[in-house]
């Protein structure tokens, strides 16, 4: 791999540059030509960042013949010599668009401003704090560029005493914090990060160890979720509803039906009415169970229940019935033709020993069958009525079964976790009512019960 070759070359280069320090300063400018003929051609394929990094292999900053790079547009920003913290650089840029390009621009302003990189630790901490605002916290190239801010080769311990005594502890801690922010956002570093860390801190240092830990544990836990969620959830609410319903139903035969697409209607009076989307799911097994349901017992529409996928919360409603009491349970005989390879029911007089008992001694919870699920953005009774009438087309028995609505407090609309502050504040007033209306508490729930007899006409 190109990167590992680069590492070997770096090691050899370091030895050469140690020898190179003995050269008189005048010849330092020619270091590039003398010591790197072979490597420059081989490294020609690497990215620009590497070439920029190689430029820092000068023996001492005072020897560089090159001027600090001048750039034209940013001069007015950096001309101001008053005491300004590094946060201000970001604040100034933040007045314009907050994008990756402007973030990179700020880093460039800083790196080209001072060859000695004074205060680079504070700058990196400030940049780490500002990353979420600029929206670049999940971008590996930006992290690599930020690690590039460290001057190379200065912090590498050169003998065993320096290696023992935590050489340059502040810079090492800063490097560890950069990697820790990468770890928090779940970003896997790449070979460029490793090369940068070796150049900056050397091997067997804390940032390098942290990198090794990330590279060991992240691949182990990457696919440990048995119900994986894609990184980018669909943005269209109907697609999102379809995805989450199939996820919850856990049945390949379940069919998703879109009863209504979201649209904006203009009624006769000129008022705008937004119709929410209604997406429902039902599997053939559930249809059979509903067909066999006793019409004297009511079915309930319950909701809204939350479902979280990464940081988005959606709400779904459930059509279910209470469990049938034991006296009404009919044991259906097994149909032997359902499976011809082996008998489904065996009448043997054998008992299982204690050592072979593989079931838990826990009473089975029977909470009643679930007949269908649906998702809609507006959870009021009118919309759910529409869903039930849509369901009735495939389950005609719903016309005879009384349907009761047990709806909890209105859900917050489908929103991602945008602003932590506003989200936390908005949960407080609703939490009290939400606590009462939570599913499972039949006595205290805000219950809207309305018997719904057979209806033929959609209301």
């Amino acid at each position: 791999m190109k990167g590992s070759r680069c590492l070997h070359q770096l090691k050899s280069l370091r030895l050469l540059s140690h020898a190179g320090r003995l050269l008189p300063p005048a010849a330092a400018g020619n270091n590039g030509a003398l010591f790197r003929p072979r490597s420059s051609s081989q490294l020609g394929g690497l990215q620009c960042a590497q070439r920029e990094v190689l430029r820092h292999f000068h023996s001492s900053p005072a020897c560089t013949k090159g001027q600090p790079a001048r750039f034209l547009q940013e001069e007015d920003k950096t001309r101001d010599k008053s005491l300004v913290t590094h946060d201000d650089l970001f604040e100034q840029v933040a007045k314009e668009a907050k994008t990756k390009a402007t973030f990179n621009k700020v880093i460039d302003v800083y790196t080209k401003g001072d060859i000695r990189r004074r205060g680079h630790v504070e700058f990196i901490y400030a940049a780490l704090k500002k990353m979420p605002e600029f929206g670049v916290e999940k971008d590996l190239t930006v992290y690599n560029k930020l690690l590039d801010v460290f001057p190379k080769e200065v912090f590498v311990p050169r003998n065993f005493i320096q290696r023992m005594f935590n050489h340059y502890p502040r810079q090492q801690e800063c490097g560890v914090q950069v990697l820790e922010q990468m770890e928090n956002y779940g970003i896997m570093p790449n070979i460029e990060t490793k090369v940068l860390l070796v150049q900056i801190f050397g091997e067997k240092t804390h940032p390098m160890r942290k990198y090794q830990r990330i590279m060991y544990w992240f691949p182990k836990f990457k696919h440990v979720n048995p119900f994986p969620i894609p990184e980018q959830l669909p943005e269209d609410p109907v697609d999102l509803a379809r995805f989450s319903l199939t996820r919850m139903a856990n049945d390949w035969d379940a069919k998703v039906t879109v009863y209504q697409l979201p649209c904006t209607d203009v009624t006769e009076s000129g008022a705008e009415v937004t119709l929410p989307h209604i997406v429902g799911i039902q599997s053939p097994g559930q249809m059979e169970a509903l067909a066999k349901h006793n019409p004297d017992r009511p079915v309930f529409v319950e909701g809204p229940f939350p479902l979280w996928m990464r940081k988005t919360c959606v709400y779904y409603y459930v059509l279910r019935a209470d469990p049938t009491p034991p006296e009404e349970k009919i044991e259906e005989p097994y149909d032997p033709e359902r499976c011809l390879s082996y008998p489904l029911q065996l009448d043997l007089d054998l008992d299982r020993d204690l050592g072979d008992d593989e079931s838990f001694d826990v009473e089975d919870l029977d909470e009643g069958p679930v007949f269908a699920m649906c998702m809609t953005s507006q959870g009021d009774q009118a919309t759910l009525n529409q869903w039930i009438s849509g369901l009735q087309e495939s389950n005609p028995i719903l016309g005879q079964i009384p349907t009761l609505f047990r709806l909890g407090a209105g859900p917050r609309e489908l929103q991602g976790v945008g602003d932590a502050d506003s989200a936390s504040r908005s949960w407080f007033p609703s939490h009290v009512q939400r606590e009462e209306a939570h599913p499972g508490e039949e006595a205290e729930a805000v219950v809207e019960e309305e018997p719904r007899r057979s209806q033929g006409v959609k209301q």
Partner: protein
Amino acid sequence: MSLPRITHLPSGRLLSAILHHQRLLPSIIPLTVPKRAVIQGEYRRPGQPRKAKFPWKKINFNFSKGLEGIKKHFTLLKKEFTDRWVGPEGKPIVEHMLEQNRAVWEFRGPESLGEWTVSSDREIGGHSEAYLKLGRNNNTCFLYGTLSSTPPRDGETRYSGYCTMRSKQPLASFDRKKHHDWSSFNTLHLRVRGDGRPWMINISAETYFSHQKDDIYCYFLYTRGGPYWQDVKIPFSKFFLTHRGRIQDDQHPVWLDKVNTIGFTLGDKADGPFQLEIDFIGVCKDYAHTEEFAYEAYKRNPEV
């Protein structure tokens, strides 16, 4: 991971270099990094004052509570004596040797909730809430609340937004510690109904050294969400060792003969309400599972 403070004197030049460094760039560090000595005493929750409470002030003299306590402890003691005649741990020897499944926690009544401690980051000054109650039909436990990841403003906490439910340490008579002995099992079996959030299961075992006090063996519990119950089976060989929330380099499988507590924690940085319903927690012996440990013993000084 924070670097230990240099408590010993380094060589003269190095010391002056470090001090010079610190004077040049004064501490306007936006990201505060905790400074911990290598030898850690009692864990101090960040944000709490460092004053000590004298041990004699913690005793509480109350007559009726004392009588109740005596009754409870002597009943437990009597039970311990009589249990030995039935068999080990109060079960007949045949059952103890052959049992393959044991439902350790079942939530069938309000007294089962008393075995659990619920806490959230409210203790360090955060804004999350967590509550525990019985679920529908009093048959399950229902952990619900709200998470908020705004960190408390105490100057040292950087991340926040977690909640946890942990079982209480089982106690024998006179408040002696008792342990769960799961050495004949190898899988943890739970039946849960979550809302799609990823939880973490923490098992805490009895340790010998004081440094190991916060050693917890963790694994993930991914919930699917939805109205159906989810059976989760996690072999104990998958649990990895962490200390104070940081995964350790030296990994070893959890020792099941002295398990103290089990806990569930949520800290997935998604603000909003959460809920988790647990039907039962049990351990079982899965003969098909032959793995001893899922992670390698890590080389301490691997080459880069």
